[in-house]
């Protein structure tokens, strides 16, 4: 067996371990990722939509819908890899035992990425179904594409979470990471309002992987956009994945080994 295959297999065992722990508190674990987008859609989409005119030829609820898929991917990945990983690393000492087995830091990190990819893909599928039932998807086939985009988006977002987990000195410091990094990314990346007339913000948002995911999901849900633009955003997500993923690996290795 090749080294790569063994490594992937061990990383998969980490995914299985996470799943076994996750399902013990399934309802508690799944609630925020489902409830938040549902409430957001109800309050802003259904509640506010009638008071707002058309945006880019769409009702506000339709405009908002794909952003909810992106949001669920962002939050699933970030919280799992920041709080979740930090708790596993410090309070539960999971890796102190895990790293005595054939699993190494590389497999731990790849396992986390696989885990958030799968979780975000499933959540994206779930949110997509709800949006479809609410009649908010112009392109109904998008529900089959959401899981892929959601999963892809989750990996660089998870890497940001791992970087946060490697840097914080205690669990409270995640609050700052959320307030000053994740929340701005979430609120300002075109989920809630179009960035077409905002030259500065419109450029800045390119610096986070989230915006590229949002755009891909919007293009899919609305059934509009060019192949060129899609290719651009996919490439951007891949680049973020590679750069942030390797950086996160390096930092986590420093935390787990000395």
């Amino acid at each position, binding site marked *: 067996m*090749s*080294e790569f295959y*063994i490594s992937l297999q*061990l990383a998969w*065992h980490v995914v*299985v*371990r996470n799943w*076994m*722990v996750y399902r*013990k*508190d399934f309802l508690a674990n799944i609630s925020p990722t489902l409830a938040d987008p549902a409430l957001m859609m109800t309050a802003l989409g259904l509640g506010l939509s009638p008071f707002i005119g058309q945006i880019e030829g769409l009702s506000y609820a339709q405009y908002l819908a794909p952003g909810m898929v992106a949001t669920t991917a962002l939050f699933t990945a970030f919280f799992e890899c920041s709080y979740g990983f930090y708790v596993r690393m410090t309070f*539960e*000492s*999971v*890796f*102190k*035992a*895990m*790293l*005595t*087995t*054939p*699993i*190494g830091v590389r497999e731990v990190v790849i396992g986390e990425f696989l885990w958030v990819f799968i979780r975000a893909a499933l959540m994206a599928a779930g949110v997509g179904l709800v949006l479809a039932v609410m009649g908010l998807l112009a392109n109904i086939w998008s529900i089959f594409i959401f899981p892929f985009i959601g999963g892809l988006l989750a990996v660089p977002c998870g890497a940001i979470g791992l970087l946060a987990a490697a840097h914080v000195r205690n669990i409270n410091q995640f609050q700052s990471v959320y307030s000053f990094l994740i929340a701005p990314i979430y609120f300002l990346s075109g989920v809630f309002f179009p960035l077409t007339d905002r030259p500065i913000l419109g450029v800045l948002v390119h610096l986070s992987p989230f915006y590229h995911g949002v755009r891909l999901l919007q293009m899919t849900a609305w059934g509009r956009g060019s192949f060129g633009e899609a290719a651009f955003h996919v490439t951007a997500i891949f680049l973020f994945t590679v750069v942030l993923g390797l950086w996160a690996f390096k930092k986590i290795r420093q935390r*787990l*080994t*000395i």
Partner: protein
Amino acid sequence: MPGPSRDIPQSAYQAGNPTIRARGVSKRFGEFVAIEKLDLDVRAGECVGLLGPNGAGKSTFIGCLYGVVERSGGELKVFGHDPTMEPRRIKQRLGVVPQENALDEELTVLENMRIYARFEGLPKQAALSRIEELLIHMSLDHKRDATIRTLSGGMKRRLTFVRALLSDPELLILDEPTTGLDPTVRHLLWEKVLSFRQAGKTTLVTTHYMHEAELLCDRIVILNRGSVVGAGAPRELIAREAPGYVGIFAQDREKVLRTHMRAGWDLFYQGRQCCIRAPQIEDLMSLQRASGTQALQIRPCNLEDVYLKLTGRELDDNE
């Protein structure tokens, strides 16, 4: 990184190469020296005890053995492999009982073990029968479906032993295996460790209990501030470093006792008691007569005396 195998042939390796071979191993954290030029061999089938005060470098050295601590210098081979280069080749043949159990509290006993059997690459059926066998061995089979949260400290520790043994490792590393456990569990675990030794497994154990070290280990290595300050078989170490007998006296008799002591004897304190070490038991008898003082206890010197002497906690007032 995967590369061409630098494996020493199994036969040559077992013919006498030590399971662990450390030469001049050092670990520095910035200015702080955790391990200083450590030399240590652990031969196949041997049980070696690593003793030393907290912060002496025991756990750091253990971490070096399977690659979670990257040594700053020196040569280190475990099963003939360098832990920095090929940690997995070592970890496949290694079982570790870490200081913390690190069990998944919300999962059951069986679930925890099945996860680790996967990590170790055991096929499903083989894993189940191996887990069952070890749970019986550790008297935990009735707790198969219990959540870890509901287990006692002793049960969790026994389960951590089960986890370390899943892959039937050749080398066992026990980092303070019985700290905080009641005497019953401690005795059970000692019995198990002795049975591993009988089965030919190599064991490296750290402990703060001298009695435990004396009972389990063929050889003791005492560390202090990252360096070896004493090594040898327990009896040998005692005979060399602290031979003879210790008389324990009430503290207020110190002055009288001191006047009757002879050269070569040691006087030191343990708590509120005054201890005198002399080569022969008769020496202490005559000291009692001469000083008109009855000792509270007279006992042969033990590993604890050696430990306290070598790690510099003994107050040597004999100069």
